[in-house]
């Protein structure tokens, strides 16, 4: 099979898809009228083009839009969950650090009371009075 374009075949095809000059149009009309081979080619090409051209809109079937919207909704929920899960890890880590700090505080102060755990020293009556006495002495 010869798959090289003849000059006229190329012009014929171009005339359907791009602007051609008036001279080219005249040449083509003349060739189609006088050359049966080109006329036959022209008919075949036109038949192919007519058969290919879509005449009715295509579709992916019923409820395609609904399926898309469900997919988008599901994906958004998944992303929300992933964000929640991502930050949840940090929340757990933060609680862990706080507990570790409190335990270390408790061990350092050696007091098994809430004040000891939170690092609040318990002041005895003697401590308070000794401070007052000291301040009086200074005055």
């Amino acid at each position, binding site marked *: 099979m010869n798959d090289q374009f003849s000059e006229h075949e190329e012009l014929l*095809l171009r005339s359907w898809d791009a602007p051609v000059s008036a001279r080219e149009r005249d040449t083509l009309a003349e060739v189609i009228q006088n050359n049966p081979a080109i006329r036959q080619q022209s008919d075949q090409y036109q038949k192919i083009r007519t058969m*290919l*051209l879509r005449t009715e809109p295509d*579709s992916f079937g019923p409820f395609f839009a609904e399926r*898309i919207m469900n997919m*988008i909704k599901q994906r958004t929920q998944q992303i929300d969950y992933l964000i929640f899960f991502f930050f949840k890890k940090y929340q757990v880590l933060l609680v862990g650090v706080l507990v570790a700090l409190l335990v270390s505080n408790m061990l350092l102060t050696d007091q098994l009371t809430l004040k000891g755990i939170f690092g609040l020293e318990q002041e005895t009556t003697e401590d308070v009075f000794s401070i007052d006495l000291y301040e009086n002495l200074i005055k």
Partner: protein
Amino acid sequence: MAAFKTLVVRHEGQVAGVIRSLLGTTPEAEDVGQEVFIRFYDALNKFRGESKVSTYLVRIAINLSLNELKKRKRTASRYASMEAADGIKGIEETLDLKEHLQYAFDKLDPDFRAVATLRLIEGYSTEETAGILEIPLGTALSRLARAQQKLRLSLTKKLRP
């Protein structure tokens, strides 16, 4: 969300036409169709309206379909079982003209098929076709001519009056 659904309904036909012309009526075609709209949804913030929504969607559809074709690495999957049974020549004898045209279309190179899909099936102008595929007008014209010639040569016997 309701506005996006309206957009899907409005453009489903165009997107389905382009994808099915390239991939056939296969399960992957709908998967690609869904991917097109989801990608568009993700890119909504970046979409500046420089091109029409339909052009943008068709461009995504073409690119994803061509990727799918590359993945498949076989161009005539819908006829693969028949080819195995009858051989290519055998199939050509059994198909009617419309089926044979579809068969020959599936055998075209993906680049030729993309141009032919937009111009010959979907009816875009040659300029629009070149624009969607982001190729020069001359390249679009030459691929178009070559695609049509291949189709005609493949169908010569059946096209005789």
